[in-house]
């Protein structure tokens, strides 16, 4: 995508980031002991904590990823919203209060509250670290995407910028800052999403989405070719250069005034048609052309429009203002044009081509465009769908940076109220993502190269100020989430591993110092991974983090809380089996195969999400190992603790 720097957006961006960093320093001054660094000394009000929970949870995956995936794949993106929220039910009903009674600072402390096992300490700290890192990747990818239109920077620079700011925040302050920062941006994100949804419904649906000059609608060319022997021979006003078959599609390259463009060759009842496509061509000499021209010529357009609008059976040009129900039902009856990607070689050139795919609204508003469970489904695709829904449902409660907030309020009653407030806030937000994602799909704002920018780019169509504020909040969203994750990671390294596992018995000051060094190291690692995973939808990446968390942490937590025979060896083994099996399945998945530069279809298996296999494996492990290696103290410790 080609972006121009917006100076208004820049101004708001710097004001907001300045505010975030300023708050962090302000609260950081109050943070002296290690207790206050990790868990804000248990002094956070439940209301603040609840919205901060929402702020933690509404990360890049929710705002950028879900909206983006809905815009590209329709209802399949909303599956993430359903699953992400369902996960809170597990957290609230099964984990929240027992967990609060168990531990002190970290997930490992809680797991180890009933045993004093070094094996649990080691495995749980590794689990926390790996889940945090997998959750960090999408945040960093989202940060890079955000910064591109905001500052006109390349993706890697955005990743670096977020990494640097967060390292400064975490190293200078700690949990106290992140709780208040998360509260602020969680609240703002919900309010701004309401504003954006209001604009979407007020504008309604139109075949030509123009926004007072801020985003002018481009009508893609359609040409009529002469065809002989299954070859395009002539096109009026154009020279035919070549044609290329990719799968069951054929693309034709035409030239006019020395500029070459690609077209999608289709055939319907009216005969042969050539529909203009979008291309990014990497030439043999290294130069990159956008639609056959250099970047500066701005011929690479934002996409996503409707080819037919039907309201109550009548075809219309536009609807005017609509209610939420009217908006959804009109979309179901209408037709949406999506852009699908293919890659191929054309001589020395590498071509990424995006062609128009008219999709019935009824299909767009059902699951199946990304996760094949209806038409075109096979066993793998159905298993993948179940696996995703399982991971999303079970992952929330097992995320280390969410759990850590259970400690930041005084009582279990407050932890419960915080969680319910968070569910209400997050649930409301997720319903809004449906409108924001669908609004992006039909208002000609999408960047075909990255789905992650759907919602902010939609905001840009409605006005520079809205765009600037939303981008700044989204950026702060990433900042806050990354900060929370890095705190959790540094806790796992400094507190669990060095202090408890290695028995260094650090005093307060060195413990904070080690935590800060660990935060720095994790931050650098996250920056590198964020650069490596550019272009992948952030919700999809978060699905992996959820699967690892669900497999590594949840069986251990649930058995610990609900089965008295659970042993320390069982817990440690379950965590390790959960981590290893989920990582193994992810690293051999089709998406990773594609990242390695191999053919995704040739991957060892076709399962994108590992939870369906790794979660039951971890459950079986904690059960069997606990039976084979019973706990050492015969259960007295557990019973005493439960009584407490």
């Amino acid at each position, binding site marked *: 995508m080609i972006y121009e720097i917006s100076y208004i957006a820049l101004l708001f961006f710097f004001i907001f980031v300045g505010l975030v960093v300023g708050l962090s320093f302000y609260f950081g001054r109050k943070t002296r002991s290690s207790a206050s660094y990790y868990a804000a000394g248990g002094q956070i009000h439940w209301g603040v904590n609840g919205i901060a929970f929402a702020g933690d949870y509404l990360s890049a995956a929710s705002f950028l990823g879900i909206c983006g995936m809905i815009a590209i794949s329709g*209802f399949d993106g*909303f*599956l993430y*919203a*359903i699953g992400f*929220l*369902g996960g*809170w*039910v*597990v957290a*609230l*009903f*099964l984990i929240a*209060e*027992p967990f609060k*009674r168990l531990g002190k600072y970290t997930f490992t402390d809680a797991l180890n509250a009933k045993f004093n096992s070094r094996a649990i300490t080691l495995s749980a700290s590794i689990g926390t670290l790996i889940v945090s890192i997998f959750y960090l990747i999408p945040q960093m990818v989202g940060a890079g995407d955000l910064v591109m239109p905001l500052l006109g920077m390349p993706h890697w620079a955005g990743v670096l910028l977020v990494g640097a700011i967060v390292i400064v925040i975490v190293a200078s302050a700690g949990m106290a800052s992140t709780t208040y920062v998360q509260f602020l941006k969680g609240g703002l994100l919900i309010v701004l999403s309401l504003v954006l949804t209001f604009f979407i419904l007020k504008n309604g649906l139109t075949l030509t989405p123009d926004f007072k000059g801020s985003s002018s609608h481009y009508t893609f060319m359609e040409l009529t070719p002469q065809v002989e022997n299954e070859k395009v021979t002539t096109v009026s006003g154009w020279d035919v250069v070549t044609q290329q078959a990719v799968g069951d599609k054929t693309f034709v390259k035409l030239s006019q005034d020395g500029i070459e463009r690609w077209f999608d060759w289709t055939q319907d009842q009216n005969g042969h048609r050539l529909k203009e496509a979008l291309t990014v061509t990497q030439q043999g000499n290294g130069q990159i052309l956008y639609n056959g021209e250099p970047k500066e010529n701005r011929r690479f357009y934002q996409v996503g429009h409707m080819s037919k609008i039907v309201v109550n059976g009548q075809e219309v040009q536009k609807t005017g203002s609509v209610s939420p*129900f009217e908006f*959804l*039902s009109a979309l*179901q009856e209408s037709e949406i044009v999506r852009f699908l990607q293919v890659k191929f070689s054309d001589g020395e050139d590498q071509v990424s081509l995006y062609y128009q795919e008219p999709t019935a609204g*009824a299909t767009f*508003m*059902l*699951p*199946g465009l990304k996760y094949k*469970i*209806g038409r075109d*489904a096979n066993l793998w695709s*159905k298993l993948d*769908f*179940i696996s995703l*829904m399982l991971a999303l*449902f079970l992952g929330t409660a097992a995320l280390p940076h969410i759990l850590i907030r259970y400690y930041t309020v005084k009582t279990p*009653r407050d932890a*419960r*109220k915080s*969680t*319910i407030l968070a*569910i*209400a806030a997050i*649930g409301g937000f*997720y*319903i809004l993502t*449906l409108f924001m994602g669908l609004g992006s799909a039909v208002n000609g704002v999408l960047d075909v190269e990255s789905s992650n920018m759907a919602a902010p780019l939609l905001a840009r169509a409605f006005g520079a100020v809205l765009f600037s504020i939303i981008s700044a909040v989204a950026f702060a969203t990433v900042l806050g989430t990354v900060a929370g994750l890095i705190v959790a990671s540094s806790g796992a390294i400094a507190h669990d591993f060095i202090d408890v596992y290695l028995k260094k018995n650090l005093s307060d000051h060195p413990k904070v110092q080690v935590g800060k060094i660990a935060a720095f190291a994790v931050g650098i690692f996250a920056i590198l991974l964020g650069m490596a995973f550019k272009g992948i939808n952030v919700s999809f990446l978060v699905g992996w983090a959820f699967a690892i968390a669900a497999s590594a942490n949840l069986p251990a937590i649930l058995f610990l809380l609900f089965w008295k025979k659970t042993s320390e060896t069982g817990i440690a083994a379950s965590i390790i089996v959960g981590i290893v099996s989920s990582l193994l399945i992810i690293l051999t998945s089709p998406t990773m195969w594609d990242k390695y530069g191999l053919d995704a279809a040739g991957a060892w298996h076709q399962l994108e999400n590992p939870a369906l296999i790794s979660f039951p494996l971890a459950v079986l492990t904690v059960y069997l190992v606990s039976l084979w290696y019973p706990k050492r103290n015969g259960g007295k410790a557990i019973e005493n603790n*439960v*009584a*407490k």
Partner: protein
Amino acid sequence: MHVNNTSTEKESLTKRKSILGIRLFFIYLICYAGFVLIGVFQYELLAFQVLGGLNLALAYGIGLIIFAVILGVVYNYYCTKYEDEAEIEQSDEAKEGGTV
């Protein structure tokens, strides 16, 4: 004796809340699993128009989100009620035992 009684009461309160949580969890789990199973085994049902012109997939999905919030409020109401009852019982016992 007093300490033991308090401990027993606390344990019973924890148990009541825990049972409530588990029940509500299973209610939600059944609804959530229903959505997934319909998707996998009866996909065509998801296209069925149900509410205000919305298909079942949308109505079910939005319904699951709203239902989670409702269950959360129900859970909080009953937990708070149990805690208040336990506090009253505890203070009554304290009075009976002659302590404040």
